[in-house]
C-alpha cells in the first residue's frame, strides 16, 4: 500500500485567513478558517489594507490551530500548497510568504495554487472527480465555466466580460438597501417574492459561454429609480426574485449547453455563490434531466474560501510534479492554466 500523502494548504486571497491539511487530496484532516467579515462590514466591503493587516494577525494562530486539530508535526507533511493568485495582492503576500517560510524551515516542497483551481477541487473532498467534467465557478470575484478533461488541466471556456455574478449581487443589494455582503439577503428575499419584473438576460453571441451582468445590474437600478420617480412601490422581494431569476437563468442555461456540447460526466458547482438556494435548486432540476450527467455541489463550508480546497488542488499539482521555488510571488491576476 502506498503511503498517505499529507498536504498543508494556505489561503489568504481575500478576507479569510485559512489553513488546512488534506490526506490524499480527498480527505480533510484539519480545516481552520478565520473570517474577517465582521471587521469589513463597517466599510461596506473588503478594504485591502485592513485585510492584509488582519492576515498578519491571524496567520500563525490559524496555522497552530490547524496543526493541533490534525495532531501532526511538520515532519509528517509531504508538501505545502498556497494560493498564489488571483486575489488582493497584499493579502496573497501574507499566505505566500508564510508558506515559503514553512517550506524553507522544514525543507518541504512548495506548490503554488490558482484560487479557482482550489474552488473546483473543493468538490473532490465530497466526491471523486470523473472526467471530462465541467465546473461552474461563481463567487464575489469570479463567474467562470471551466472544462477539465483530466486532473490539474483547466480550460476556461466561458468567463464574465464585466461584473462577476457575486459582484452584481452586492451592487443590487446596495440598491435595495440590504447590508453587506448582499448575496445571502437577496437569496432570502427572493424566496419570498415573485419574479414578475421584466429584466434582461445577456445571452451574448450564439454559442458563447461568456457572461455579462453589468447590463442587468443597471436595469435593476434604473427600474428602481424610475419607479421611485413615479411614486410607485416595487416590493424588494419581487425585485430580488426577478434579479435572481435573471442571473440563474443565464448561469444554468449556459452550463447545461456547455455540459451537453462537451459531453461531460460531471457538472461541479464551486465558489461562494454556490450557497445560493435558488441556483442550487435550478441547477439540480436542469441537470437531473440530462442523461448520465452527475451534479456535485459541495457543502457550504467548502464553497466559501477555505484552505482545504487549496490543499486538495495542491495535492494533484504536487503529484504532477509542479514545484515552486523560494522566489514564488503573489500574482493578483494569475491566469488559470
Amino acid at each position: 500500500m502506498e503511503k498517505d500523502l499529507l498536504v498543508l494548504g494556505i489561503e489568504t486571497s481575500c478576507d479569510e485567513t485559512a489553513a488546512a491539511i488534506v490526506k490524499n487530496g480527498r480527505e480533510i484532516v484539519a480545516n481552520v478558517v478565520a473570517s474577517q467579515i465582521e471587521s469589513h462590514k463597517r466599510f461596506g466591503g473588503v478594504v485591502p489594507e485592513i485585510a492584509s493587516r488582519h492576515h498578519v494577525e491571524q496567520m500563525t494562530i490559524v496555522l497552530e490551530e490547524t496543526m493541533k486539530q490534525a495532531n501532526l508535526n511538520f515532519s509528517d507533511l509531504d508538501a505545502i500548497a498556497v494560493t498564489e493568485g488571483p486575489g488582493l495582492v497584499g493579502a496573497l503576500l501574507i499566505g505566500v510568504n508564510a508558506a515559503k517560510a514553512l517550506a524553507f524551515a522544514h525543507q518541504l516542497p512548495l506548490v503554488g495554487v490558482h484560487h479557482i483551481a482550489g474552488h473546483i477541487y473543493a468538490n473532490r473532498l465530497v466526491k471523486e472527480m470523473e472526467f471530462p467534467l465541467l465546473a461552474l465557478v461563481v463567487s464575489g470575484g469570479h463567474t467562470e465555466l471551466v472544462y477539465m478533461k483530466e486532473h490539474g488541466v483547466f480550460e476556461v471556456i466561458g468567463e464574465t466580460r464585466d461584473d462577476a455574478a457575486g459582484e452584481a449581487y452586492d451592487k443590487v443589494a446596495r440598491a435595495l438597501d440590504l447590508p453587506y455582503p448582499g448575496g445571502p439577503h437577496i437569496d432570502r428575499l427572493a424566496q419570498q417574492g415573485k419574479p414578475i419584473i421584466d429584466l434582461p438576460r445577456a445571452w451574448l453571441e450564439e454559442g458563447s459561454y461568456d457572461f455579462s451582468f453589468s447590463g442587468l445590474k443597471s436595469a435593476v437600478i434604473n427600474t428602481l429609480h424610475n419607479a421611485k420617480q413615479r411614486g410607485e412601490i416595487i416590493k424588494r422581494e419581487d425585485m430580488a426574485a426577478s434579479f435572481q431569476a435573471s442571473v440563474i437563468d443565464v448561469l444554468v442555461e449556459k452550463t447545461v449547453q456547455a455540459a451537453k456540447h462537451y459531453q461531460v460526466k460531471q457538472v461541479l458547482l464551486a465558489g461562494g455563490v454556490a450557497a445560493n438556494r435558488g441556483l442550487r435548486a435550478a441547477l439540480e432540476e436542469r441537470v437531473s434531466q440530462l442523461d448520465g450527467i452527475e451534479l456535485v455541489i459541495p457543502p457550504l463550508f467548502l464553497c466559501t474560501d477555505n484552505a482545504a480546497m487549496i490543499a486538495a488542488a495542491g495535492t494533484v499539482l504536487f503529484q504532477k510534479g509542479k514545484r515552486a521555488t523560494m522566489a514564488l510571488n503573489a500574482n493578483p491576476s494569475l491566469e488559470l492554466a
Partner: protein
Amino acid sequence: MKVLAIDTSNFVMGISIVDDQAVKGEIITNLKKNHSVRVMPAIESLLQECDVKPNELDLIVVAKGPGSYTGVRIGVTIAKTLAWTLQIPLVGVSSLEVVAANAKYFDGLIVPLFDARRGQIYTGLYAYRDSILETIQEDRIVLASEWAKQLKEYQQKVLLIGGDGELHKQVFIEELGDLAQVAPPSLHNPRPSELAFLGMNRKSEDVHTFVPNYVRLAEAEANWLARQRERVDE
C-alpha cells in the same frame, strides 16, 4: 547563539546571520525591487553560505516598521512564521532605530527618517549614551517642517540619517542652521547586523500577537473613526 535578522521595511533589503559576537554574513541591497520575490531566496542562500541550517537558528530579529506597509508585512510574516515553526524566540526592533544605530560615534541627537509622502516623514529621536542607543522620542509620522521646529528646542547637534534624508534636509537646515548635519551615503542603509545586535538582549515578543508598528491607522479605518466621532458629536 545564531541569530537571523530580517529587514524589509523600505527599499533596503537586509538579511544577516550573527553568531554570538561575530557577524557571519550580511546581504544588503537598496533597490526598487520586489521584496516578496527576493527575501526568501536571500535568506536561503545566506544560511547556506554560512553553513547554518534553519533548525540551528536560536533567535529571529525583525525590523517591525515604520516603513512601507507591504514591505514591513513581508518581513514580519516571514519572521513570525519562522519563529513559530522553529519554536524559537522572536524580537521586533524599530526600523528607524536600526538606521540610528549606524551613527554610533555621533555626539548629539540622531534623527533617522523615511519619507512618508506629502512632506511627512517617519522619524524618531535617538542618542547614544555610554555607548547604548537610547530612544528619546518615540517613532512617529510628522511633517518634516514640524519635526524640525521641535528639534530646534533641544539646541543640540542633530544628525539626519537614512536614504531619504537628502529629500528633506533643506527643511531642517533652514530651521536648525549649523546644528543640522546629514550623514554620508555609506551610513544611510540600515545594517541587518546592527538589527541582530539590537534584538539580541531584548525581551522576546508573543509570536501570535506580534504585529508591525505601522505608526498610523489604515486610511479606511481613520475615516471610519472620524465618522463615528461626528455621529457622537451630532
